[in-house]
């Protein structure tokens, strides 16, 4: 491990060699997504820089937490990875194949292996269907199961997510609580036997106890099926509970990424520091609290990001250089990268 800054371009070429036993499951390189905003009459008024040059790798069975403020591009990144929207540029290699530019039919096949769970469980479940049909649907396209085998598999899945099959298989989504509906959405995602699940704020709308149960469920599924996750949430403590590594997004870019324990204990990017300092802390053993320290100012607009470092308008360490030059992602230690001209020194 070295503190010496080493430039990596493109990011994370320091990954273990391809095709070895440590081949990444997912390998994202230089991903860019932009949206054109239009005013009345369809006149172009600007370009939203939603994701700008994002690169990362995800190993089988590994969980990458993704944190950042609203609008930092987390959901856009997820949509580009799963090819709900085609990215403007960049590559998304999944199981060794580039998904960008694949035909719709091929993508549909890949989706058996790459599933998504959203924040609003009700929004992703057809209200007219019964729970059993909701979960069975992804099995129809991808497997040659008989009807009985499918019914059996649905019951297994319900059991797995902690819902008693006899009680729940005939219910409709609106007859479920938020936590139960999210479990159904998870059972549906797990049904085709994926190797990657992308969770976009999947526990954000749940109550504390239910949220903790669903987090435990994600962990159990990971252990059981060697699942990998991209776990997107704006709540840093929730992300820590399930992640191996964490990527901190700021205005479409990766500010910092690396092992979760290391980054939470000694963040190197001032933005990561600010996010962590914003979290209210209660030590549940002693009752001692730590009040948040507020980061002053508003996040800049993604329509017109600041020159140089996009965090400079709020950064307490900013200097002239920060306005002139965009900081390059730099490796500070094994699998830990930071994009900052003046990174914090580890305590």
């Amino acid at each position: 491990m070295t503190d010496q800054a080493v430039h990596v371009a493109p990011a994370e070429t320091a990954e273990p060699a391809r095709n070895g036993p440590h081949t990444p499951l997912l390998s994202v390189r230089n991903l860019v997504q932009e949206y054109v905003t239009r005013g009345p009459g369809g006149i172009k008024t600007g370009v939203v820089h939603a994701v700008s040059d994002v690169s990362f790798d995800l190993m089988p069975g590994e969980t990458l937490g993704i944190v950042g403020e609203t609008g930092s591009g987390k959901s856009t990144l997820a949509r580009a990875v799963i090819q709900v929207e085609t990215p403007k540029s960049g590559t998304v290699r999944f199981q060794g194949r580039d998904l960008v530019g694949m035909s719709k039919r091929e993508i549909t096949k890949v989706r058996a292996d790459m599933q998504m769970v959203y924040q609003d469980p009700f929004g992703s479940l057809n209200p007219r269907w019964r729970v059993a049909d909701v979960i069975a649907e992804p099995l129809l396209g991808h497997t040659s199961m008989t009807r009985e085998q499918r019914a059996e598999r649905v019951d297994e899945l319900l059991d797995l997510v902690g819902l008693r099959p006899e009680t729940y298989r005939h219910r409709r989504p609106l007859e479920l609580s938020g936590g139960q509906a999210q479990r159904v959405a998870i059972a549906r995602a797990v049904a085709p036997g994926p190797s990657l699940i992308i969770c976009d704020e999947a526990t954000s709308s749940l109550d504390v106890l239910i949220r903790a149960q669903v987090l435990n469920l994600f962990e159990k599924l990971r252990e059981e099926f060697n699942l990998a996750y991209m776990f997107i949430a704006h709540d840093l403590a929730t992300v820590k509970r399930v992640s191996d590594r964490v990527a901190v997004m700021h205005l479409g870019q990766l500010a910092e990424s690396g092992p979760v324990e290391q980054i939470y204990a000694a963040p190197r990017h001032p933005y990561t520091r600010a996010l962590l300092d914003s979290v209210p802390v209660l030590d549940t053993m002693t009752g001692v609290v730590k009040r948040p320290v507020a980061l002053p100012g508003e996040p800049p607009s993604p329509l017109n990001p600041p020159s140089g470092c996009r965090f400079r308008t709020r950064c307490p360490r900013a200097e002239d250089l920060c306005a002139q030059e965009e900081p390059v992602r730099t490796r500070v230690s094994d699998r830990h990268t930071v994009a900052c001209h003046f990174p914090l020194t580890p305590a």
Partner: protein
Amino acid sequence: MRSGARLATMSGMLNATREPAATSNGAAGPILVVDDLRVTFSRHGRVVHAVNGLSYQVRPGRTLAIIGESGSGKSVSVRALMGLLPPSAHIEGSARLDGTELVGLDDKSWRAVRGCQIAMVFQDPASSLNPTMSIGAQLIEAIRMHAPLKRREAAQKAIDLLKLVRLPSPEKRLKQFPHQLSGGMRQRVVIAIALSSDPKLLIADEATTALDVTTQAQIMELLVDIQERLGMAVIMISHDLSLAACYAHEVLVMYAGKAVEHAETRNLFSNVRMPYTKALLDAIPQLSTPAHLQPAIVGGHPPDLSALPEGCAFLPRCPSSTEQCRIEPHLAEHEPEHAYACWHPVSRDGSCTGQKEERP
């Protein structure tokens, strides 16, 4: 017109000198005294017991946090104080604000109390602002609702209020519409409207839940600052125990419409006694706990409020329950300044007296 109308009145707060803010050492008497408050809703012949005998007091300059799971009656209990419940709600008990009984007030008296004495900030700033009216128009309408000010005077007050909530370039904001502001800025405007009435009590119902953690920290800092300057009493409702612990002087934990534990914040969290509070604490993810920790979590659901069982409402989910729990435990100060309702409080070191396991 939405919140503006609800929250409005102006009594010259910004210029008038107020009595010095009461300090938190308890010198001032309570501004709000809630006593055995009960709220039921009747629906299709079923009676939903949303609030079941809630009692607490809040003093000027102090913050009370009400925490608990979804559906435990937090919002209903404070909406009852604001006269914001639908006609299907039946309210019993007493809630006195500065001596005025709020339960059973007629509509006209409500308008006088609501707005000029209590104001409320809700979770979703977007839905408490009118999207078709400019910020200035909404603020000025709120200001002029009860104070006989000329437009120009009201406009000046509006600017002062926006400065008070530290909205950047307030003059410019007056002409803008809600959608032109970020979520955090919208919540500042909502707070400005709430403050336009110089309230003695501010109720913040999940006021920062929809915001980023960075914005939440800013808004909480603002609320604390304003509270100290104006000496307001604050009730904050939150799902987030850590947030409540950081900002409240006192914490009240609700379960199934009742207070189950209530104490000074430090006292409560350093010495949790009620198994339900303990269950909540065990469940919250913390920055400091190691990754991949899988704590045992209390299962089950809160009880059906239209068919509350006899005895302790937490019984079906409680890891420490015994036969005795079929008799309802009452909230009482079993220890100095620390009230809880439980026959078998968790032990001082924080461990449960019963065994913990995940229940289906």
